[in-house]
C-alpha cells in the first residue's frame, strides 16, 4: 500500500510546552547500561543534554600499577570487550615498542588476521545492536549468528569465546592452530552472506532509513576538533585510518580501502562499518595467504618470553627464566612511549611510562569512544527525543573502554 506521506510544517505541530526534565539511563536498553543522559526537553525537542559517563569505571589504570607488565593483558581484554583481540595486540605492540622488540613475520600476520576477525565481530555487534534498538530484531539475531562464527574461530585459537588474554609481550600465547586458515576461509563467506542479507533487509526498509538519514550529522571540522577517530570520523569523509596513515604490523603490505562517508550522519556510520567488515575480510584473506605455516611466533628473547613448560619442569635454566618472568615480571627499560593502533572505534592509544622495573609505572589508555561520547551532546541537541537512540547506537559506545 502507498506509504502515508503528509506534508506537514514542523511549526504547525510544535505546541508551546514547558521545559521538561527527563532522565535517560543509566539502566536503559539504549544506554548500554552505563551512560546517563539528563535531558531538558521542550515538547519532544531536546533543548539541553548532560551526558554522564563513569558508571562502568573499573579503575583499569590503577590496577595496571600493581601487577607485572604481562598481567595487564586480562585488563585490556575488558576495555573494549567487543573486540578484545585488538586491545591485546595494541598493548603488546606498545610494550614491544618500549622494549625495542619486533616479533617474527608469522606472528605479525597472525595478529593481523585475529585483529581483523575481532573488528568484524565489533562492527557486527554495533550494527546489529543498533538495528535492534530501532526495533529490527531479526537482523540483530542474524548478526549475532555471524558473530558466533567469528567467536568459534577465536575460541578455537585462544580457548576463550570473548576475553582471550591471548597477546604476549614479544608474541602470542600460542602459535596458530593447524586448521586456522581452513576455518577462516570457510567462515568468512558465510559471515559476508549473512551481512548482505541483513543489509538488504535493513537498507530496503523505509522506516529504518528514515530513522537514520540526516539524523545526528556532524561536519568534518567538528568531528576532528572533538577528537573523533575511527568509523565515526570516517563517516564524515575524513579518511584517517591509522592502518593507512601510520601502518603497523604488515598493514602496508596488504591492499584494502578505507570506506568513508559523506554526510557524517547515522546512516553513514552504519554503512562505513558494513564497508569495513568487507575490507577486514580482504585483509584476513591476504594475511592468511602470507602467513607461513610453520616457524617461530614468539621473538627469541629470554627476558620477555616464557620458556616452554616442559623445560621449566626439567632444567634449572628454564626454571629460573620462568621464575624471573612470573615473580618479578619482564623488566621493561625505563622510558615513556605512546603507541597507537586502529581499534574497532578508532585510535586506541597506550601511553606507557616505565621506571625500569617489572611493574608498569603508569599505563594510560586513550579510549577512542571517550571523546566520541563527549561529542554526543553536540549531535543531539536541538533534535527529537527519538533520535537519541539511533544516534547513540551508531557511535558504538563501549562502557569498559569509555569509562576505563
Amino acid at each position, binding site marked *: 500500500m502507498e506509504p502515508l506521506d503528509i506534508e506537514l510544517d514542523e511549526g504547525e505541530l510544535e505546541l508551546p510546552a514547558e521545559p521538561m526534565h527527563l532522565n535517560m539511563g543509566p539502566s536503559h536498553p539504549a544506554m548500554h547500561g552505563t551512560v546517563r543522559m539528563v535531558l531538558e526537553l521542550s515538547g519532544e525537542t531536546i533543548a539541553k543534554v548532560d551526558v554522564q559517563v563513569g558508571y562502568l569505571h573499573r579503575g583499569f589504570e590503577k590496577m595496571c600499577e600493581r601487577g607485572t607488565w604481562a598481567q595487564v593483558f586480562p585488563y585490556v581484554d575488558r576495555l573494549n570487550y567487543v573486540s578484545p583481540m585488538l586491545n591485546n595486540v595494541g598493548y603488546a605492540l606498545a610494550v614491544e615498542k618500549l622494549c625495542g622488540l619486533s616479533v617474527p613475520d608469522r606472528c605479525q600476520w597472525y595478529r593481523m588476521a585475529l585483529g581483523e576477525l575481532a573488528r568484524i565481530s565489533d562492527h557486527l555487534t554495533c550494527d546489529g545492536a543498533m538495528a535492534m534498538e530501532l526495533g529490527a530484531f531479526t537482523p540483530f539475531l542474524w548478526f549475532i549468528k555471524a558473530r558466533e562464527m567469528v567467536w568459534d574461530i577465536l575460541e578455537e585459537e585462544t580457548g576463550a569465546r570473548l576475553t582471550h588474554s591471548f597477546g604476549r609481550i614479544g608474541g602470542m600465547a600460542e602459535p596458530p592452530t593447524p586448521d586456522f586458515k581452513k576455518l577462516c576461509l570457510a567462515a568468512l563467506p558465510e559471515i559476508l552472506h549473512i551481512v548482505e542479507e541483513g543489509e538488504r533487509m535493513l537498507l530496503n526498509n523505509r522506516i529504518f532509513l528514515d530513522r537514520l538519514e540526516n539524523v545526528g550529522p556532524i561536519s568534518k571540522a567538528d568531528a576532528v576538533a572533538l577528537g573523533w577517530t575511527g568509523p565515526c570520523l570516517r563517516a564524515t569523509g575524513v579518511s584517517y585510518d591509522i592502518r593507512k596513515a601510520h601502518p603497523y604490523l604488515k598493514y602496508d603490505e596488504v591492499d584494502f580501502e578505507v570506506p568513508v562517508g559523506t554526510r557524517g550522519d547515522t546512516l553513514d556510520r552504519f554503512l562505513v562499518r558494513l564497508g569495513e567488515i568487507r575490507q577486514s575480510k580482504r585483509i584476513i584473506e591476504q594475511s592468511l595467504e602470507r602467513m607461513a605455516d610453520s616457524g617461530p611466533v614468539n621473538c627469541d628473547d*629470554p*627476558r620477555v618470553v616464557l*620458556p616452554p613448560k616442559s*623445560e621449566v*619442569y*626439567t*632444567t*634449572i*635454566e*628454564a*626454571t*629460573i*627464566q620462568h*621464575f*624471573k618472568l612470573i*615473580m*618479578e615480571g619482564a623488566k621493561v627499560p625505563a622510558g615513556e612511549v605512546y603507541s597507537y593502533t586502529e581499534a574497532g572505534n578508532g585510535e586506541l592509544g597506550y601511553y606507557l611510562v616505565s621506571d625500569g622495573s617489572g611493574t608498569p609505572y603508569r599505563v594510560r589508555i586513550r579510549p577512542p569512544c571517550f571523546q566520541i561520547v563527549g561529542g554526543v551532546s553536540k549531535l543531539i541537541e536541538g533534535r527529537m527525543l527519538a533520535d537519541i537512540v539511533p544516534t547513540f547506537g551508531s557511535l558504538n559506545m563501549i562502557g569498559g573502554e569509555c569509562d576505563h
Partner: protein
Amino acid sequence: MATFKLDGKTVPFEPGDTIIRAADRQGLTIPHYCWHPGLSSPANCRMCLVEILPKPGQRPLSLDILELDAKTGEYKPVQKPKLQPACYMAAADGMEVLGDTSEHVVKARHDVQEFLLLNHPVDCPICDQSGECTLQDYWLEYQKTQKRMHDEPVHKPKGVEFGATIVYDGERCVMCTRCVRFMAEVAKDPVLDMRERGNLNEIFVSPGRQLDGHYTFMTEHVCPVGALTTKDFRFKARVWFLRTAPSVCQGCATGCNAHLDYDPRYNKAYRYRPRDNEKVNKYWMCDEGMLTYREAHDGRVLEASVDAAARTTAQALDEVKSLFTGVPSDSVGVVLSARYSLEDNWALRELALVLMGTKNVYWSGRPDGYEDDILIHRDKNSNTRGVKDLAPTAKPFQALVDDVAARRITHVIALGGSAPGDASTLRAAKLVTIAAHRGPMTDLATVVLPATSWAEHSGTYVNAKGMRQIADKALEPLGASKPAWKQVADVATALGFEPSWVKLKHIRGQLIGTAAADAHATPGPVVGNASAE
C-alpha cells in the same frame, strides 16, 4: 688520587685496592660469587673475570686456544686475551679494564654461569633463596641460554645438618667458600672446609665437630645461593612476600644494624638480616642477635591487666588514677628502661621530673651476660647509654629496691618488664608497669599497660659507642599495645597532667640538643621512614 678506567668510566682507588673493591666503592658492580667485601679473595668462582688492556707498546697477554669453526666443523687455532679475576688483581694507576664492553669477558661470564648451573638441581620452587639468589639474577643478566647438557647431573648430599642451626645442600653449592672463609677469618673458628674435587666438591664440617658457636647464621647470610639455609627460616616464608624495615638489633648494647623482614599480610616478623654498617657491625651479626626478631612476638604483653586480671586499657588507667590520688610526689618512683627507645624514656622522664615533679628516677634493664671481642657486648640492653645520657641522675635499680624496702617509695611507675636483679621486694609498692614483654616487673605489677615492641614503632637507640640509631616501624601494633610514649602520655592524662607531647615528632624535636643527640655520629638512617634497599 690514583685512578683506573673500567669500561671507560674513571674509578679512583686507594693503594692496595683490588679492581672489584674500588669499583664496588663507586657503585659499579662486577658480577661475583666468591668475593665478599668483608672476606679475603680466593678468586675461585671466576665470575669477576675482566680483560686488562696492555700498556701502550706492551705485548698483550694472550692465550692460544682452539676454536670450533661452525661451518667447517674443524678446530682452528686463535688467540684470546688472558682474563684476570677482578677480585684478585690489584688496581694500578692508568689501568684500562674492560668488563661488559669486552666480548671475551661477556663470553667468559656466560660460560662460567653455564658451568655453575651444569649440575644445579631444579630447586627454585622449594628453595628458600629463590627470589634473592645470585644464580637467578646472573642467569638473566649474563647467560640467557637454555641447558645444553641433557645428562644426569652429579648428585651430592642434600639436607646435611651442619649443626643445630644450619642445613647444607651440596647440589646447590657453587663452592664459593665464603662460609669457609667466614668461619676462619671472622668467627676465628675454622670448622668448615672443602673436600673432594671438581664435580664432587663439597663443603663439610671438621670430623668430630659441629658448626656451632655464636656466628653460624652468618654462614647462611654470606652464602650467595641456597646451599646453606638456617633451620630457623627454612620453609617459613617466601621472600617476595616479605617487606623490609631498617631496624636495630635489641640483643645487646652493640646495636647492630639489621633489616627486619616481615610479612605485611600476617603482620608477622620472619627474620633479621645484617645491614652493612662499617662503623658498627660491618656486615655481620651474632646468632643471638639474629634470633631477637622473635621478641616481636614472643612473651609479649598484649592487653592491659589489673592484679593480673585482663582489663581494657581505659579501666586500667582508671585504676592508675585511683592508685595515685593523694600520693605525695616524693614517694613516687619512676623507673626508666635501658631496653626502650629514647622517645619512650624521654616521655617517662618528662612525666617524672616536669609533670609529677619527683626526683626519684631509677633505671633498669637486663642483667649483663656473655661477651666476646667480635660483636657481642656484655651489656644486654640496647639503650643503656641513651638512658644514662637522658637522665644522668637516674639511680640504679638496686637503689629502688632499697628505697621500697625502706618505705621511702610507695608507688612506682616502671617502663619495661625486665629487671637486672631480684625485684621481689617491689611487691611492697604499688607498681604500674608499661611493658612490651613479660618479666619480673610485670609479674609484680598492680597495673600493666601494653606497650609496642621496637618492631611496631619507630624509635631511637644509643649503642655502647654512643651512636644514635633509629629502628623503623615494621609491624602494626599487636593486640591493644601502644607505643610506650603514648601510654605514658595516657597515664599522665589519667593523673590529671597535660602531656606536652602528642606526636612522635614533638619528642624528637625535644631530643635534639640533649646530650644523647649527636645526630652526626648517627650511621644508618636518621629519618625514621627511610626505606631499606
